[in-house]
């Protein structure tokens, strides 16, 4: 029985880079599925996913990912060992990236731009922690981070977006694919316009606003190190190998 990779996609953590690479080497709807708002035009096409799964043997699916992917969706793949994967990004960098992305989209769609100060003030605290807790089916409580940490210890890979170049090839290798470094998608300053740039004061301000995400990111560094240690001794992808 081949393992199934569940790629929880916390917004602005490198998920599109992974998705775009999988799209380039796998066949969407056959051995790979990515559900979500940004690439399908619909908000949450769970019915379509069910329909698609019902029409084919689920044993062929290598990976499923996307923003609306929940842990309980694993029930759609009975008997498949689950490998859960998530990337966590430095919280200040993620908020700014989110703003740049959101503002670029608003400008492209002709919608009014939200001033950055307002955006930050209205941005929910600890969004990565809350997003992940919801995906894992953890009930809201005062001790959400505790429950998230407890669940992460069973993950196949908890990595940092900053280490994506190092981690992604190994993850692809785990999936039985060629261990290459994917080309980055949605990069601020390239495909996404840069409206705000981080400086040390802004980093400090944003980190204070998202303390649980800061802790989560810190823990991700150790989870990531443990993953790399498990991979030690295996052949490493060459650093200049791009897909």
């Amino acid at each position: 029985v081949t393992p199934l990779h569940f790629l929880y996609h916390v917004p602005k953590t490198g998920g599109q880079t992974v998705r775009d690479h999988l799209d380039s080497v796998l066949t969407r709807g056959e051995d790979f599925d990515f559900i979500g708002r940004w690439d399908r035009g619909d908000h949450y096409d769970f019915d379509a996913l069910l329909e698609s799964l019902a029409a084919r043997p689920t044993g062929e699916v290598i990976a499923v990912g996307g923003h609306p992917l929940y842990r309980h969706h694993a029930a759609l793949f009975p008997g498949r060992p689950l490998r859960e994967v998530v990337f966590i990004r430095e919280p200040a960098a993620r908020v700014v990236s989110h703003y740049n992305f959101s503002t670029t989209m608003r400008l492209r769609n002709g919608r009014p731009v939200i001033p950055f100060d307002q955006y930050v003030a209205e941005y929910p605290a600890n969004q990565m922690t809350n997003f992940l807790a919801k995906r894992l089916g953890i009930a809201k409580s005062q001790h959400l981070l505790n429950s998230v940490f407890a669940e992460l210890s069973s993950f196949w890979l908890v990595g940092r977006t900053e280490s994506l170049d190092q981690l992604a090839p190994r993850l692809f290798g785990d999936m039985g694919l060629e261990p290459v470094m994917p080309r980055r998608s949605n990069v601020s300053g390239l495909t996404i316009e840069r409206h705000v740039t981080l400086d040390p004061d802004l980093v400090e301000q944003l980190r204070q606003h998202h303390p649980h995400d800061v802790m989560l990111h810190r823990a991700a560094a150790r989870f990531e190190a443990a993953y790399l240690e498990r991979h030690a001794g295996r052949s490493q992808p060459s650093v200049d190998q791009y897909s």
Partner: protein
Amino acid sequence: MRIRHLIPTVGASASAELRTAQEFTLQSIERARRCADPSLSIEVCSVAFHDESLDVPWVSSTPPLERSVQDLGDFREPRRLPLLSDVLDRFGDPADFDLAVLTNVDIAFQPLTYDLIAELRAEGYDAMSITRRTVYPPLGRTPSLSRLATSIGSPHPGDDCFAFDATMLPQLIRPDAALGVRWVARTLKWQLRLLADQFGQFNDLHATFHIGDDRLWIGDRFSDYESHNQRVVEQLIEELCERYGRERVRRLQSAAPFVRALEEGAAAAPLPARAQLNRPNDPPHPAGEVRLVFAATSGRSGSEFLAQLLGTAPNVDAGHEREPAMIGPFLRRVVYEDPSTSYTDRMVKVDAIRAEVELLAQGSVYVDTSHMFVKTFADVVLDSFPHHRVSIIALRRNPIDIAKSFMELDYFGPIRRPWMGWMPSPTAPYSHFRLEPDSIQSQFDLIFGYLVDIDARTMALREMTPGATWIDAHLDDITSRDGASHLFDQIKVTPPAHLHRVLAPVNARTATKNKAGQPVSRDAVASAWESFIARYGHRPEVAGFVTRWRGESP
């Protein structure tokens, strides 16, 4: 009272440092003899090899040692170390004295140490271990006894001064463990714990002291000697199990891996010696470095109030049950599995603390008063941060009051299940005070068993972390202005200007208690406590708990 004090002494073959230490030891003991109450008859005896006998007029000689550990095996680096069995033999006829005292050659006495030992015996301690403080010679000056004796130093967990009733001597198994090597003290301490009606473990006195902390036994250099002692321990454990029963032996500190190995017919794999327990040579922490404060407590003892109190100081960032709270799955993993298996996963707490500390201003004090500390994260925290940066407040409250509150909140009861995420049942396999499920007679048994478990965890942690600053506090004290001020002094934090305004009543959780709907009288709790004591009072953890709570009787 007649005291016979044995000291295994050294001669020319010993290192210069050890010979110097011996000189200070003898000076101090001679002074203590002269200072002792006249009603005490003290005979100090040297135990030595025939060619290294001690020539000090007031020290008696015992029959010379005729063998050493070298006669029992081959070792990489020869060290002529006496065997505990031979040393115990040198006490001679127990009819000749009332109290046996055994100390290492490098353990010096304060002038009133003999008086202290006699007083403790009069209080009912028929066997005791008094651990030392580690002191350092003044830099650039020749050390003197007065300088060393009055140096505050730091506490040290090692057992190196035992006192016990002479009547126990014939009952002691004589193990061939080498002196000066890991495990030797345990072979004696375990037996004294099993034999004593009331064993006293005194870790916080300034009764004995030792110069420096070389810890020769850490590392691989003398690992073959440690292996020898470990084999002796395995044999001793087998004999102790036969004599006292496995359950009693298993509960002795550090004995569990040996008992498990005995049951499985495998070699024991005890935890390695900790190299960083006490690091007195660590530089004093820089003024700008964040310090960490935790609480060792059971819950329902004022830990939330403690966080509120400390948080009123301007440079303190205090929280009660800070995230991740290390509850639920983390708790289950330390009480239903060997805690070492979840160690790496529990490191998330260290990650979180590091992340929070980075968000604090330089020179801040980070406080988490969660009662989960002693249960799920003390080990990872204390292994990850230099001990001198950590203060631990042992927060206490009258156990009858705690148990009453627990019962009224239905902790360990069937109604409010959330307690299971916070409090381990004493019936769990890795409880520090395990109760057999079949022996539980009431919810109170679980509550009192839990309180003893927390006390045992605290004492074990305290013994292993003397480099941390341990502060004893009582809820009744810290809710008063003087007590609160004293606490701030102890953690070296300036109290807020209007301290009296923050001394609010403690969180009584009245609404939750009303919801649980099971008020209980203090008399009923006291009666349940008496019943618990009647059934479990013989166990050392309960005896220790009671001793520490004396003066707190209902």
